[in-house]
């Protein structure tokens, strides 16, 4: 008995030794792998998390006439290191309806933009995905073509179209459809039009890459089982493209909330969006802590639904696995 145990231990040690001896290069391999995966993590850490922490820190600070124009959180007097956190910025944001309105109108504009982009972008993405392969690349190129010109130039082009003496009004006037020019520029409508225009490709591309993977046989199976084309769309195509819809909506919604340039150039001065508030706090008031707080609240507003969706997805997956 004893000897058997002993020999067992011996053999175990022997295998461990051979493993140690032979596997140095094998063990180097996973290390190389983790090195490769470390690059994107390092990137995110350096260019996202660290700046974010800076912003977070500034948001708990006060304005000070200095360079940079805010008080450091940690201060040392003699042997005492004191950490002073100022929650006043946040209290101010939640207290002043100006900020609330700005957030609300930003979320509203971004939401409407996302919805319109989805309704307009889905058929476009679907058509491209179902087009013959040779045509597909050309169509995708057309979607991406505007990116080759500067964003600002494109917004200026829209100003040329929507202006009182712009192309659209002139065309409508010469057709006799209207008697006097429509006020299009500097309205909510013009902001909406240009935002949809600017963000549409970000909706189309993820939707396309999802829809192009859709198995045509599933559509045939649906027809075979009695679905008319529109029923097939509602029961098969749309549910299966859910991830593309979510990805596209996020890609449009998130940057649209913080959009600054478009409302500034084609919007009304009265409607305040959060991007504009941020700009004013930062450049006009030179109030970095306030600007930082506005940013942090915005990020929180955007991250909360994403985290919620993610958690729900995880739960659904766990449920499916349990069955």
């Amino acid at each position, binding site marked *: 008995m004893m000897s058997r145990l002993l020999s067992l231990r011996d053999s175990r040690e022997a295998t461990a030794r051979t493993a140690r001896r032979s596997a140095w290069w094998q063990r180097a391999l996973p290390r190389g792998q983790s090195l490769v995966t470390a690059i994107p993590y390092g990137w995110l850490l350096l260019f996202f998390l660290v700046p974010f922490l800076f912003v977070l820190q500034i948001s708990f600070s006060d304005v000070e006439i200095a360079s940079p124009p805010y008080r450091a959180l940690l201060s040392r007097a003699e042997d005492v290191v004191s950490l002073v956190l100022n929650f006043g910025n946040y209290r101010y944001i939640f207290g002043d309806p100006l900020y609330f309105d700005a957030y609300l109108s930003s979320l509203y504009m971004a939401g409407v933009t996302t919805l319109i982009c989805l309704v307009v972008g889905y058929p476009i993405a679907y058509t491209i995905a179902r087009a013959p392969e040779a045509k597909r690349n050309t169509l995708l190129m057309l979607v991406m073509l505007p990116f080759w010109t500067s964003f600002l130039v494109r917004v200026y082009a829209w100003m040329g179209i929507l202006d009182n003496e712009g192309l659209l009004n002139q065309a409508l006037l010469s057709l006799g459809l209207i008697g006097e020019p429509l006020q299009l520029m500097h309205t909510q409508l013009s902001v909406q039009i240009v935002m949809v225009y600017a963000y549409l490709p970000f909706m189309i591309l993820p939707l396309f890459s999802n829809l192009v993977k859709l198995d045509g046989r599933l559509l045939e*199976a649906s027809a*075979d*089982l009695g679905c008319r084309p529109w029923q097939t769309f509602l029961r098969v195509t749309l549910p299966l493209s859910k991830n593309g819809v979510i990805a596209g909506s996020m890609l449009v919604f998130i940057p649209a909330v913080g959009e600054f340039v478009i409302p500034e150039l084609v919007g009304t001065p009265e409607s305040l969006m959060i991007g504009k508030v941020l700009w004013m706090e930062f450049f006009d008031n030179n109030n970095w802590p306030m600007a930082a707080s506005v940013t942090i609240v915005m990020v929180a507003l955007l991250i909360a639904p994403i985290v919620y969706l993610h958690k729900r997805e995880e739960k659904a997956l766990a449920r499916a696995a349990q069955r």
Partner: protein
Amino acid sequence: MAESSLHQAAKTAGAKSYLQIVDVVKKFGDNTVVDHINLSIAKNDIFALLGSSGCGKSTLLRMLAGMETPTSGKIILDGEDITALAPYERPINMMFQSYALFPHMTVAQNIAFGLKQDRLSRSDIAERVERMLELVQMKKYAHRKPYQLSGGQQQRVALARSLAKRPKLLLLDEPLGALDKKLRQQTQLELVNMIEQVGVTCIMVTHDQEEAMTMAGRIGIMSEGQLLQVATPGEIYEHPNCRFTAEFIGETNLFGGHVVEDEPDHVCIHSTELPRPVRVGHGITGTMGMPVWLSLRPERVGVSRRQPVASGNWAAGTVGDIAYLGGFSIFHVRLDSGKVVKASVPATHWREEAAPTWNEPVFVSWTDNDAVVLTQ
């Protein structure tokens, strides 16, 4: 009078054949994929379209399902012309080649998919789904998603889904093509049992002759868009009507030759590859001297060391290759003409003596009823 008797004839034909495919042609551009196919199938028949890939069998199936429209011709099901109907209007359901189960739905939801379209009440749907799950023995897995199932389980869900609507015609596209070989053989008869239990007319498409012969009551051999022969598996194997069928189904030895004696009850064929004329114990529709092919199945060829006493139907040669397959061996015997004849000999044949070995001189022989004359 003549007209009414014609009408009568059409009616009786209609009663016998549940599905009629009338002169159907399908062209893609200049390419004729399905070439004037005529076929009628009786109710509750299981019919297999057998052919190699690109022979047009899948296109024909897709025309039945409504996913392709015939260039010309008609498809009549249960007395109704369905040629122009859209897939969703046809009382036909299909089990797709790789099943095409909806990945976002559970097994039960997949089966209920078509029933919801029929606007059945919720309780009716639940009951029908339950029965289908029972039929394919998948009750335990009702709430799983397709990706959580094995290939065989997916196949059964696909069958349940296509049977749930009680179609007049069930189409199976390579029903077992996605399964591995062992599972395939086991599933063949299981599938037939389920189909017969429901009692549905069924057309399957396959390139696997074993699958077709095991499952189908009748088989249609297709090649280059044409139906070459339609018959029971036994008839097709024993009495192929052309060279293609003889070679496509099972193994065979083919000899080219011409008719030297043509009697009502027998013919004699002379082939340069065989030493003496072959006597075949059935008449043919042909003329003296016409070129024909002789098909001789390997299991019909005997191998012996002793010279046969009969005057014909044998040849001398030497053993080339031997493929030992356990229960039987296949001897490749090289005749004096240079032609290699394959003979499949059961192991039990060699009880008295040892089996011939490589390079041993042997005789191959067969009887009057073993060879089949092919005129096409």
